[in-house]
């Protein structure tokens, strides 16, 4: 029986057990009026259900975790010694045997002993499944019976059920931590591999990004060892340049929008304009990228030509401006929240002294909200740094160390995509660098976020 149908069975069992528990607790309460049940009938039902299902489920998990290893060693043990080399080879033989058993991916003729082993494997697997089913059944029945018998007025079924529920909730909230661990794990290994090729100092402080084609010259034989240069700085500077331009667009606009919305706009205007501006936040970044590529870029070039500037269609400026547009609602709604959190008492205090509205905003509200706004801006910066699609399409993909916004640049995110989906040898530093870049980016945004969080939190506490 496969895992899926086992789980289905368990669910059915749970429903049955639930009924049992409920009926029994009802009859206990009804039969003897003096017995005041601690919990409600459905709590008892649920408790019996959980006892009937959780232990077998746990056993199933354990079994699925350990049984492949056990089976594998049993199969290996059954193989005649002369065919059994050590170490690495064993894994390959095992794979071949399991392929045989699954009837999949066998190429050369199978030897007699291989076939035997495969049959044995097959049989063991079947046995294992049977045993698991039986074991689960037994455990489930024991759990059901024991918990069923335990039902008494004084039994705190609700507490048990609530504990299990709490465990479940706790489990869900650890997913975030698991994700972070997953992110780090998925990158650390490859990153370390990368650093066996390239010195970390060359990576972190290198000023040129020119990772030759992974195999350029290898075929030729004469160029071995020339891996190109993997300097992070040009990418980082490109990232910062684009983010900086984006902030130049987003901060003034976003902040003024927030101020207007929070302080001036009559509620009617606010109610209509806010969703409209928030539409900007819901637009997929690929759409912004496309917009930048086909509309904003050429427009900026024409504009530049009119002013006598050469602006590339795909440049840091294009990407930055469009990214800035994307971030307007991000900044405006965060700042709006923060501005409205500034207590009315402060505003009243200032107005009561005869300040005008703008004076109140500029001299009292904004300074008071400043930490929060800085936090919001930092969050926006971390977005800008992590943004990919706009830059893929609009920044021009040219990793050079430049501060000229009219030039094409490249960013960390884009380089990750390019290096990983390019034609490079997958075991070469050229593609492994993507992981190093990913990890670097993760650390940078982590730091930014922590700083932003600390600031925003401090700010919140200020008024609590």
């Amino acid at each position, binding site marked *: 029986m496969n895992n899926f149908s086992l789980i289905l069975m368990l669910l059915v069992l749970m429903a049955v057990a639930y009924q049992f528990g409920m009926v029994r607790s009802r009859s206990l309460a009804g039969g003897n009026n003096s017995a005041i049940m601690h919990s409600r009938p459905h709590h008892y039902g649920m408790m019996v259900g959980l006892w009937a299902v959780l232990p077998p489920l746990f056993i199933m998990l354990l079994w699925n975790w350990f049984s492949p290893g056990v089976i594998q060693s049993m199969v290996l043990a059954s193989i005649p010694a002369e065919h059994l080399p050590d170490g690495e080879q064993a894994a390959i033989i095992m794979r071949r045997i399991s392929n045989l058993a699954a009837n999949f*991916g*066998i190429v050369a003729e199978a030897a007699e002993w291989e076939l035997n082993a495969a049959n044995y494997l097959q049989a063991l697997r079947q046995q294992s499944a049977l045993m698991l089913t039986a074991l689960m059944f037994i455990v489930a029945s024991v759990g059901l019976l024991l918990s069923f018998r335990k039902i008494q007025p004084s039994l705190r079924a609700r507490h048990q059920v609530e504990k299990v529920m709490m465990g479940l909730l706790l489990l869900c909230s650890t997913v975030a931590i698991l994700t972070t661990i997953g992110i780090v794990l998925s990158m650390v290994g490859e990153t370390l591999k990368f650093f066996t090729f390239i010195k970390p100092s060359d990576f972190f402080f290198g000023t040129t990004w020119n990772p030759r084609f992974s195999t*350029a010259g290898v075929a030729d034989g004469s*160029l071995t060892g020339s891996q190109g240069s993997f300097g992070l700085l040009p990418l980082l500077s490109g990232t910062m340049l684009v983010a900086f331009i984006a902030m130049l667009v987003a901060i003034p606009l976003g902040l003024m929008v927030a101020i207007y919305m929070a302080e001036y706009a009559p509620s009617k205007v606010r109610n209509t304009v806010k969703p409209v501006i928030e539409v900007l936040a819901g637009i997929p970044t690929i759409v912004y990228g496309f917009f930048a590529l086909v509309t904003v870029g050429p427009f900026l070039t024409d504009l530049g030509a009119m002013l006598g500037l050469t602006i590339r269609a795909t440049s840091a400026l294009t990407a930055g401006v469009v990214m800035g547009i994307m971030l307007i609602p991000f900044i405006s709604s965060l700042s709006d929240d923060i501005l409205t959190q500034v207590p009315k008492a402060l505003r009243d205090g200032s107005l009561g002294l005869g300040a005008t509205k703008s004076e109140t905003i500029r001299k009292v509200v904004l300074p008071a909200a400043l930490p929060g706004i800085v936090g919001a801006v930092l969050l926006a910066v971390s977005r800008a740094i992590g943004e990919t699609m706009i830059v893929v399409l609009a920044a021009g*993909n040219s990793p050079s160390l430049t501060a000229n916004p009219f030039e094409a640049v490249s960013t960390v995110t884009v380089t990750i995509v390019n290096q990983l989906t*390019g034609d*490079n*040898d997958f075991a070469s530093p050229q593609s492994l660098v993507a992981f190093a870049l990913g990890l670097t980016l993760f650390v940078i945004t982590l730091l930014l976020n922590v700083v932003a969080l600390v600031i925003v939190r401090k700010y919140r506490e200020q008024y609590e």
Partner: protein
Amino acid sequence: TRDTVQVAGSSTVLPFSSIAAEEFGNNFAQFKTPVVGSGGSGGGLRQFCQGVGTNTIDIANSSRAIRSAELETCKANGVNQVIEVKIGYDGIVFASRIDAGTFALEPVHVFLAQAAQVPQNGQMVANPYTRWSQIDKSLPDQAILLAIPGSNHGTREVYEEKVILDGCKTLPEVKAMPSGDQNNFCLAMRTDGRVVEIAGDYTETLARLQAQKDAVGVFGLSFYESNRDRIKVATVSDVVPTVDNIIAGTYPVSRPLFFYVKGEHIGVIPGLQQFAEYFVSEAASGEGSPLEAAGLIPLSDAERTEVLNNIRNKKAL
């Protein structure tokens, strides 16, 4: 188990592979249309070499031959039957904007335009050229601006081997160098912004050209064919890049395209062998075929027979 052939890899091969897959699906009612992923040659081979089984791909597209290190990884992961299939050739062309000057390039021109240092009067000096006409009188009098494929592209390799190294090594000063230094010298690029590497696809190169009138870009032949209204092609060593010239071998800048079939999956994944054979059949990729129309330069008859035999005999690397 899976009943769809799964392909991934080079984005250069992707269009051809997609067309082949689609035609295959339409022509063979009994098989599903193969799925063609991109991810680059490296990405494709990475997945290909992850092992055997339904959750690994069956075919890896590649715009270059598999490397020995990759093959070793494959074998270590139990992929022992790597069947190499050459599907044809890809022409690489230089093109400029339709309203810019017409180029008749020699490899050495391109080298002189992109090199960090060039020989002058027996001395190596930092590249002084800013206009094509300074390199050669026959070239248009326009600023040098070269958009070449980024180092993550397979095209870059061909460009460097077939154009830059070739052009560079015709110079007597280079010939005089110790052979160990030649490549390093030839491949060093100027960094004054006149050469830009395009890490994205050809549309990005095209966008570059549209933004800058003077730019000369490197494209695939098929991309050029589809955009003849915007760009015009340069001759290389006086040969016009056409399918015929490439087949004839007179146009120098071309490269073979491959895919790799996982022998272990043949007979298990329905349609795998049929698809591989269909791909290289005369009907799909011969002359007058849909793939040729899409810009693939067909194999010669001899090559085709050999490749087909390789598939049938599961001749592994």
